């Protein structure tokens, strides 16, 4: 009898040993051999980025010229002040603006410069004296008696990064503190105009935050402007639907060189631009213009403009050489039977430029040539297109598309027109501020959604290459945020561009798709012929052992009782 007991015991041990081997050796082996390769990703850093805490630092230099401060106050400057402003936009986004203001008195050379007869000359000679860093603002406080500004204006904003501010005379008894605090609202207003305002930054973040927080006007501006990207392709197309009647000549090389290129050169820190042009024959608009006998002309109404673009776009062709966003500018010369053609706005009035634009796509201009020849002229007629007229319209549209909108100056401000470059330094700074913030927001959104996706779908293989892209995106993002915090605008923009590139490359990598469609039920079907017959005896014997143990314990308890 004892031998039978020993035999039973041995059977139990054997079952337990096999179960142990299966659990300790078999399952890890199976797990190891069938797992998908997933490189390590900095998930913790990514989740930190998810809640975006941006600090933007602006350096403001306030320079008091002679006659604005009393001598005893002059001895107390230079000094510097820091003012911070915090904005909790939503649960995940926080903005902190930090204005580092340095106060000092003007040097002798600056005094000389400020004694120039006009504000423009003063601006130029101040610029010759010192080059201020990208993103910084210099405000010169000039006495009320100064003749640099017209009587009813208080602030002059120059072509570069300097502004002149006419200060009201300070009461003789006032201490420095009072003087500075009375200046502060005005300086803040200048800084808002020349670097960024809260609304600008909110508009740049419009993808991330709820719409309601951004003012309507800013939102329209930001939706019109094409998304921030490291490069843009600008394509000018001349549409000639009627080559039998019109032989068109346009000097696009010259037009681009003298109108578009200066602006693009100025914008080169923001992105790479490439410009090309083409002529498309027999390209027609998608809608038939209506003949209006009252003006004996064909008209396109504002609500039909939406249907114009799609049929034309099929002819434009995509850019074969790069995947940057394309801005299209079309010059449409109506055919001889359908001219002249005028565009009418919502109030049925003719649009003077005869052009319209489509947000984030480009612009279309209608160019009527019917009055350039007599009806009895012999077809085809040669027509030279007036590039100054065309390029003026396209340049305005291009500025809108790039987000270089005309700033509406607050009352009392004089803005110096930027001249031939088309863009003042501080306007570029404004654009760089909002573009850096936009890039940081976009890249962090891309990276967090990628991390979320990879986290949720365990079947996706994560190559080392992707892991490297993700970490470089994260590093650049952190660097961009740090540079923004330090106030180095140029570096911040550079890093944010790198972050966008790396994050997009990681997100759109084709290798992420490889094992995605390998559903669990198929895996189950493969495994079941092996696992079922192996696991059932083990489970049964384990259950039997467990029930025996329980029974014995119950017997023991009963015995004790």
């Amino acid at each position, binding site marked *: 009898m004892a031998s*039978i007991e020993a*035999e*039973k015991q*041995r*059977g*139990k041990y*054997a*079952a337990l040993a*096999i179960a142990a081997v299966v659990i300790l050796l078999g399952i890890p082996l199976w797990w190891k051999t069938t797992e998908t390769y997933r490189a390590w990703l900095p998930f913790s850093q990514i989740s930190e980025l998810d809640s975006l805490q941006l600090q933007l630092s602006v350096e403001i230099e306030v320079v008091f010229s002679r006659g604005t401060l009393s001598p005893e106050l002059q001895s107390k400057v230079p000094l510097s002040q820091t003012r911070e402003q915090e904005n909790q936009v939503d649960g995940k986004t926080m903005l902190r603006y930090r204005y580092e203001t340095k106060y000092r008195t003007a040097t002798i050379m600056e005094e000389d410069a400020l004694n120039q007869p006009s504000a423009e000359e003063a601006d130029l000679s101040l610029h010759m004296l010192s080059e201020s860093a990208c993103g910084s603002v210099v405000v010169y406080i000039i006495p009320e008696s100064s003749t640099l500004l017209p009587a009813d204006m208080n602030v002059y904003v120059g072509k570069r990064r300097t502004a002149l501010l006419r200060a009201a005379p300070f009461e003789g008894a006032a201490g420095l503190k009072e003087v500075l605090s009375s200046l502060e609202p005005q300086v803040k207003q200048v800084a808002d105009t020349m670097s960024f305002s809260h609304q600008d930054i909110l508009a740049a973040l419009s993808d991330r935050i709820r719409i309601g927080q951004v003012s309507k006007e800013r939102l329209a501006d930001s939706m019109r402007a094409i998304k921030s990207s490291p490069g843009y392709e600008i*394509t000018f197309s001349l549409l000639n639907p009627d*080559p*039998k009647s019109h032989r068109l*000549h346009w*000097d*696009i*090389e010259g037009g681009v060189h003298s109108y578009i290129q200066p602006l693009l050169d100025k914008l080169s820190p923001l992105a790479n631009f*490439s*410009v*090309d*042009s*083409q*002529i498309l*024959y*027999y390209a027609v608009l998608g809608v038939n213009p209506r003949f209006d006998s009252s003006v004996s002309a064909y008209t396109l109404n504002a609500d039909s403009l939406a249907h114009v673009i799609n049929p034309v776009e099929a*002819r434009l*062709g*995509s*850019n*074969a*050489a790069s995947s940057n966003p394309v801005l299209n500018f079309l010059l449409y010369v109506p055919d001889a039977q359908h001219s002249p053609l005028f565009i009418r706005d919502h109030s049925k009035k003719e649009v003077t430029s005869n052009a319209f634009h489509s947000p984030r796509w480009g612009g279309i201009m209608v160019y009527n040539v019917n009055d350039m020849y007599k009806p009895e002229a012999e077809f*085809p007629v040669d027509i030279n297109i007036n590039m100054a007229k065309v390029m003026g319209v396209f340049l305005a549209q291009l500025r809108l598309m790039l987000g270089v909108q005309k700033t509406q100056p607050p009352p009392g401000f004089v803005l110096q027109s930027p001249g031939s470059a088309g863009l003042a330094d501080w306007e570029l700074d404004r654009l760089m501020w909002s573009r850096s913030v936009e890039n940081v927001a976009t890249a962090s959104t891309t990276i967090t959604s990628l991390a979320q996706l990879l986290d949720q779908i365990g079947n996706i293989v994560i190559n080392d290459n992707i892991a490297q892209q993700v970490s470089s995106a994260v590093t650049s993002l952190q660097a961009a945020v740090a540079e923004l915090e330090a106030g180095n605008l140029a570096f911040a923009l550079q890093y944010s561009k790198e972050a966008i590139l790396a994050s997009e490359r990681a997100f759109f990598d084709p290798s992420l798709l490889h094992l995605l469609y390998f559903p669990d039920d198929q895996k189950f079907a*493969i495994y079941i*012929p*092996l696992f*079922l*017959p*192996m696991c059932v*005896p*083990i489970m049964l*014997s384990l259950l039997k052992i467990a029930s025996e143990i329980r029974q014995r314990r119950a017997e023991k308890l009963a015995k004790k009782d």
Partner: protein
Amino acid sequence: MTSGCFVARVAFGVDARVEKPNDVTGPVSSSEPGQSESAAVSSGGPVAAPVSEADEPAEAAAGGAVSPPDQCDEELVLRPLRSGDIYASFQFRTQWDTDFLHHGKKVSHYRLFPKSLGQVLSKFSVRELHISFTQGYWRTMQWGQPFIPSPPGAELWVWFHNTVEDVDGNWKELVNVLSGIFCASLNFIDSTNTVQPSASFKPLGLGNVTDHRFLRYATLPREIVCTENLTPWKKLLPCGSKAGLAVLLKSEKLFHSSFHSQAVHIRPVCKDWQCTSTAWELRQTLNVVFDIYTSGQGKKEWSLFKMFSRTLTEACPLASSSKVYVDVTDNPEGELFDLSPVTPLLSTAVVLGDRRTYSVYDLTKKETFGQLRSLNLVLRWKGESGDMLRPLLHAERYVAGFGLQTGEIHTLIYNNHPYRAFPVLLLDSVPWYLRLYIHTLTVTSKTRENKPSYIHYQPSKDRLRPHLLEMLVQLPPHSVTEVTVQFERALLKWTEYTPDPNHGFYVGSSVISALVPSVVAMDTNSTQERPLFSSFFPTKEESSYFVRVYTEPLLVNLPTPDFSMPYNVICLTCTVVAVGYGSFYNLLTRTFQVEEPSQSLAKRLANVIRRIRGVPLL
């Protein structure tokens, strides 16, 4: 004269200073005495005239002030074939005047030249690009030589600038971009079907590049050509399909044909005979053979309207010339067919070694369209057509052998010239999964061994590159030369099979390039205005003309497994493992004990019966 120079001539070299290819891996025989006659290598015609770099800037400056006029021409050639079919060949040529030889200057303004192709040229530093899409096989024996030959499926060959460092990288990106432009599956071109022919494909345009490191050649014999390829092709035309000859290009008619081939050829050319300035030439060709006889209820009669369901009403207003040519060589007295409307314009051209006469319809002239303002050419056959002149060179190819292990590729090259022998270059690119036994390569003509004077063989590497075999073979007069080579079929990995593996695997056409002796003197004067169809391959000498012949592609069966097998194998192995494991497990865990032997079934049955009967139990 070395055989290398000979190669250069046959290969249509634009440069006479071709060195002997130095990476010849196969056995190269020394020059044969019979080749001395070919020593007269033409000394670089006007096409090859070197462009002097010195006077270029002046030209560019002069051309910069006024926008240089681009130019485009269009042309349709109709050739009635003796079989009753009709061969229609469209050619559209766009010349883009730009000083592309100056590197660094970005050209980005396009007039007539399509922007998408221009961007491709400048981005990938392409020097010459030839791409063709073909549906159907050109039957040389029945139809004669086509103006521009092409193999079935897709073919792409590209010369890159010699400044390109990463040719393979450029090539890879280029095929992807081109597959987007032409809506074709060119993205299947990779290193396993790309070769660098050493002599067969020489640049057709300007330039003296002969280093085949910058050449890439690939074919996709499986490619199906259809409407989606035609639409982007038509988009490249300056007039689109809105005016000119292109209105005839209706896909429902074009693809209802025996043969359809569309191609794009881009090359740098001289603008004038002195070659003081250069231009990009874009040639778009479309060749189609209509089987009018069977689709026309047995009537041998055709018209433009019947073929294309359109008539011509105008020329493309941008084209500087727009002409329709009808081949009337066989019909000098009007005994074979009637052609209406009758045109007084006749022109003769020497094309493919033959002097042909054409009726010309100039679409830029108003009187061509007559009273109805539309041109509908009608041709009615009168007599029975006789036999066609056999083409001097043609070739065919097939796979021999049985079973799924080995096989043999036979290539037959026919020289139908009664008394002249001439050399041909044979190019074979065979995928790696057919393992060629190159030691079994035999070349025989007239039952005697024919030793190739030049062999370039590059063995394949599994999953990396195909076999490349190039040979220069002398064809004796009036003979058949047979090239055979044996191969073994490889077993593929299960993911490498195509979705329909039992259909078989395609092997691209062999390419035979030759300078065929001409019956009539060829026109070597390239300065003279010539119709487009006769000016694609530049002619260097009067006594011969260049021909490229493509053989049929091969369809080879590979050993194909049953693809449900893996699952069956998994199930079967699992069952075996489970049974083995189960008995082993039982053996280990069961306890064995002696049991009281129970009564047997017979005994129990007997007891039941006994109980019923009331007899004592056993």
